[in-house]
């Protein structure tokens, strides 16, 4: 049996848990994690709109051409790069990504160039009808 105090404390904690979770979803933002809104896949993609996917492409020192680089080699997930995309619009911040890759995967060849690309899939009635690319930022060693 719980003591009256034990019960009271637990009742308050359970109430807080529910209240914070509800408040987080109604008025909170990601910033309020762990009481952030449960928002994965919550935005609506318009059937006539577009889907954007970020890519990092680069050429290694002494290499011949540009290749798509895994986001993991930068120590980040794709969604994290996309979540910070507005901050990554400058060559200086891309340089920070290069620094990250050199720290996380020191075994990989050094990069000579890095390009942050956004691939746009155009939709019509929810189906892909075209593909475009835009360069968000570029960095050269």
């Amino acid at each position, binding site marked *: *049996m*719980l003591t009256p105090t*034990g*019960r009271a404390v*637990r*009742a308050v*904690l*359970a109430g807080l*848990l*529910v209240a914070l*979770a*509800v408040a*987080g*979803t*109604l008025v909170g933002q*990601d*910033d*309020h*994690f*762990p009481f*952030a*809104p*449960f*928002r*994965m*896949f*919550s*935005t*609506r*993609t*318009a*059937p006539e*709109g577009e*889907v954007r*996917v970020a890519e990092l492409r680069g050429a290694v020192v002494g290499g011949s051409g540009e290749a798509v680089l895994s986001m*993991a080699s*930068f*120590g*980040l*997930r794709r*969604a*994290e*790069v*996309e*979540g*910070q995309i507005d901050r990554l619009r400058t060559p200086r*911040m891309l340089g*920070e*990504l290069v*620094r*990250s890759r050199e*720290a*996380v995967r020191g075994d990989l060849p050094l990069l000579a160039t890095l390009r942050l690309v956004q691939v746009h*899939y155009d*939709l019509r*009635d*929810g*189906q*892909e009808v075209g593909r475009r690319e835009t360069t968000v930022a570029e960095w050269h060693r």
Partner: protein
Amino acid sequence: MTWLFAPGPRGRIAALRTIAYLFIPIDVLLTTSWVGDHADVPGTLYQPLFVGRLLRLPPPGPVSVRVAMAALLVAALVAVTGRYPRLLGAAVAALYAWWMLVAMSYGKVDHDRFAFLVLLAVLPTVGAARQGDTTEDEASGWALRCVQLAVVATYLLAAVAKFRFGGLDWATGATLSRAILRRGTMLSEPLLEYRWLLVAMQFAIIAFELASPILLVGGRVSRGYVVFLYGFQLATFAGIGIIFLPHLVAMLAFLPVERVAAAFIERRRTRGQPVGRFAGSPDSAGAHG
């Protein structure tokens, strides 16, 4: 209030401890090992969350992340033994919470951890618990209720978030098409040609998320719903390669997982021991008396 404190089986707490604490090394080293990669990411890419700013936590670095990881793994593995359940349980909960701040402070916040974080937070509130113990008490009941509430919140509030961020017409959009275009698998890519089916699935998702409070009713209906939800999460994995493993662990709070250990103990007892030795014990009186 009666519902919140309805006695729950103590053995389920023991089983959840074993599973949750054993899951932590899998989570940290295998299934979400990307969290540890944040150790070497420069501080310029760190985006501290509200909690991190409030507590003035320093940016994660190569040393702090590795020390925390080692401490978390050691604490979790020792906690599996069931020793010092309050002390070690609290240490695991605190370390894992910090680990999650390391995970979510680089531009993307996931919502698959909520129920697991609640599970880790409430496990230490129950004292020592024996595997297979079917006796029920209020402390165990409350802890299980909290995890169950967190699981329901994860689904129900995900529907609310869809209305808030996507609008009331979220279900008629192309969100699943987007998910498949971004991270589809062999199994899901053919679905892109059947937009009506994807829209129907979006309506179904909203419907079962809104129906999730059914889980709190208890009994067969709830258990059936839990099994359905496990199926949904597995289908999601097959379709877009995302699996909410910590959430799946927390959902075990709805299932009579304590019976596995109870059955195992019972079998060992009846097989390994001569029957006569227990002839006088109260629980064998019915069978032999």
